[in-house]
């Protein structure tokens, strides 16, 4: 198996047997996007190019539904079996993808065990609390992810209310900073800045948001665990629950 997509990389690394997985995408090595950088080190990286992948002679290629359609088309024409996994936008999708990965790898029982563990860990969070603080998801360029996103589900699982969706802003996209500030969230969860500098990320540290953060206990940042639908999202939930309890 060759995995071309960050999320399939991780699920494959978690579920695959010895020798099943022969390459992961290069994004798996980016610490800001991948929580499994160390494990990824065991595998050679690929850049999702058809020629490169074909040269590795895989039995199957794992990709996402939004992976480059030309690359995938080319691979299929060359006779390679490509399985595409949908984007995980909620926890049901996570479970489904884990089971699907298990099926594809021939490791169904391992997958089922993983899902069971996932459900158990999730139930352990006391998410139904009376006082649900509001949280704002804030990324570079004043981007917010709306209600059909993994980030939204992570918030809800941690017993927080998504400030933007509460106010009726359900679409993912850039929202003027003024409107975000007006929501006066109890918690500001920011994206992390990449090295180098960009104006897009300058707004993450805007003084208005600094004032809002003064009232919260602990910096809340999204990181690699928020990106893909894997059991790692529960670690993110755990950290948020921690912060919530201290508020």
């Amino acid at each position, binding site marked *: 198996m060759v995995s071309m997509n960050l999320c399939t990389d991780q699920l494959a690394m978690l579920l695959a047997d010895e020798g099943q997985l022969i390459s992961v995408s290069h994004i798996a090595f980016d610490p800001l996007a991948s929580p499994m950088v160390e494990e990824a080190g065991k595998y050679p990286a690929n850049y999702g190019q058809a020629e490169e992948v074909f040269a590795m002679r895989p039995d199957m290629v794992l990709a996402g539904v939004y992976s480059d359609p030309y690359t995938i088309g080319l691979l299929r024409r060359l006779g390679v079996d490509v399985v595409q996994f949908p984007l995980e936008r909620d926890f049901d999708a996570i479970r489904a993808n884990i089971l699907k990965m298990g099926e594809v790898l021939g490791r169904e029982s391992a997958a089922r065990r993983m899902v069971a563990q996932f459900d158990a860990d999730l139930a352990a969070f006391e998410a139904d609390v009376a006082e649900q603080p509001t949280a704002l998801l804030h990324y*570079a*360029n*004043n981007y917010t992810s709306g209600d059909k996103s993994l980030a939204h589900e992570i918030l809800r699982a941690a017993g927080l209310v998504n400030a933007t969706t509460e106010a009726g802003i359900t679409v993912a996209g*850039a929202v*003027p*900073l*003024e*409107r975000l*500030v*007006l*929501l*006066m969230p109890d918690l500001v969860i920011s994206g992390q*800045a*990449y*090295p*180098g*500098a*960009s*104006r*897009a*990320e*300058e*707004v993450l540290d*805007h*003084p*208005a948001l600094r*004032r*809002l953060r003064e009232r919260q206990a602990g910096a809340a940042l999204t990181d690699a665990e928020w990106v893909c639908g894997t059991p790692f999202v529960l670690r993110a939930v755990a950290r948020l629950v921690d912060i919530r309890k201290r508020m």
Partner: protein
Amino acid sequence: MALRVSLFLALGVLFTLSVMIGPAGLSLADTIRALFLGQGDAATLVMREIRLPRAILAVLVGASLGLSGAAMQGYLRNPLAEPGLIGVSGSAALGAVIVLQTGLAAAWWLALPMAALAGALAAVLLILLLAGPRGSSLTLILAGIAISALAGAMTTLVLNLSPNPFAASEVVFWMMGSLSDRSFDHVWIALPFMVIGWSLLLSLGRPLDVLTLGEDAAATMGVETRRVRMLLVLGIASCVGAATAVAGAIGFVGLVVPHILRPFVGARPSSLLWASALGGAVMVLAADLAVRLILPERDLKLGVLMAIIGAPFFLHLIYKTRGELR
């Protein structure tokens, strides 16, 4: 006198509107209460940390650019001279981008404005070298084209080489300019350099008046040309550098404003300095307001609006002076 009053009035009105209008949809009463009395947490945050610094920055940037344009035109005795057009803003942007991408700006806050100032300085010196006061309009424009092209290309290169995935698409901001999501952080970075620039340039009023008669006559009337040149170069570098560091390269302000106001001040370069500073502030405030009213949800770059107004204006100016272009 009448001109000053009307400019100040326009400034006051536009500033008020600028502070009142925004996507947050606050009522006038809320706005006033939040701004002056600090009532209403959310509204106060929006007013004091988002709208107020943006309006203030528009005034500062506009004044700096208008003043620099008037000073440059006065010295070069050429109505086509403008810091944006002849590559000074572009070079300032290059300086800023280099310092941001190498992390120097994060390490030391002064690095950003000083790098932008250095970039602007290099461009002004180069322009004076190539097309100084004795040079023709043609040489000036050609030198400007070359410097702008070089600065733009280098800026794009630096941004493309950045490890940051957002940086590459930000060439637009640096080339076109924008005041969105600015804060008092930016005001404090720019203000000291702008104030220095303003005082340097405003002190050149009389020398610029006398330079109307040519360099030789001016030299014999007590104008120390070397000192004037140095103050001009430093003043323009300071003003344009600081403005570009926080708002990107905004062109055409220094071209359009002095040209429009010149008849109202009797063509006196000294009066035009003050008038252009005020006029520049009015123009940038108005443009920033328009940008927020036309496409409120998107960040329409300020420079786009300036170019839409300024470029046809520039073409018209070229057409008008085509007989005189030596």
